[in-house]
């Protein structure tokens, strides 16, 4: 894996736009994961 220039540390983020989703039933049941979302947008930031 190429070395990433960031570490995903969800405890440091205040991001209700995303974090609120993990308490919604349909998101939990679907397998939704906030770390996947954070990883994606941080990867785009460090492309």
């Amino acid at each position, binding site marked *: 894996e190429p070395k990433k220039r*960031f*570490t995903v540390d969800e405890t*440091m983020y205040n991001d209700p736009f995303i974090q609120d989703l993990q308490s919604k039933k349909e998101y939990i049941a679907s397998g939704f994961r906030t770390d996947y979302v954070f990883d*994606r*947008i*941080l990867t*785009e*930031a460090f*492309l």
Partner: protein
Amino acid sequence: YRHSSQYRFWSFTKDNLKQKRLETNSRATQKIEEDMKKFIGSQTLTNDELNITSTKAIPLTMEEELKLVNFYTQKVKVISQHLNLPTEVTATAIVFFKKFFIENSVMEFDPKELVHTTIFLACKSENYFISVDSFARKAKSSREAILKYEFTLLESLKFSLLLHHPYKPLHGFFLDIQNVLHDKVDLNHMGRIYDACRKRITESLLTDIIYHFTPPQITLAILLIEDEQLITKYLEIKFTGDENSHNIQLDKLLAIINSCKEMILSPDVVPTQDAKVIAAKNYYVQHPMVL
């Protein structure tokens, strides 16, 4: 990013971008001049008519083309926003339109005829599918007009549809700033600049920065415009000191970001009147008989 088609096919230095536009313009000019010769050869024109033709029906310069393209790119943005398309779909439509006129001249394709096609293809490509009939109704156009150049557009884009826009990097830096600056960040202030940055990103796509900078560099330039102090502090902590295992030289990064910022702050806004004059000239050069 270097593996992406966006970098491989669509990243240029300023010189070779200019070179590209000159090639496109001269190819179209050549064709126009040949047609003009045929036209003059096939008509019995009076001296006056000859005179008017040779002074008014002259091909556009590369600079004039660029003005006309920028004018219509603005229309792509306005129409996309009018259609309430998601921000990233609007951004894709803008970029598709601009790239089409890197490969093609406005003297070969009337930019008016590409506006809806680029928005329609952007919707499809970004999984925001609208059927061509309902799109035609909303855009007050026809399915034939919308589909007419879809293939040509795809080909001119060199079939590279996956675009990396600066919006996700903005969100990413929003997070990483919280991580790196810890509790020294006023979140309400961040929220305010976040929205301002999104708007500015869309505006910035109308310039040539998409060809010269990576999405994160554009984002950092825009963050620098919105809050220089915050970003400078963030970058210093992030890219200096022992934890800088990222092999990024801060001074080099800042130089790139600042040159990007300069470009963003000097957009080429085309007054409608100028665009009208150029569009008329473009029309006459393609329809000398009307002239």
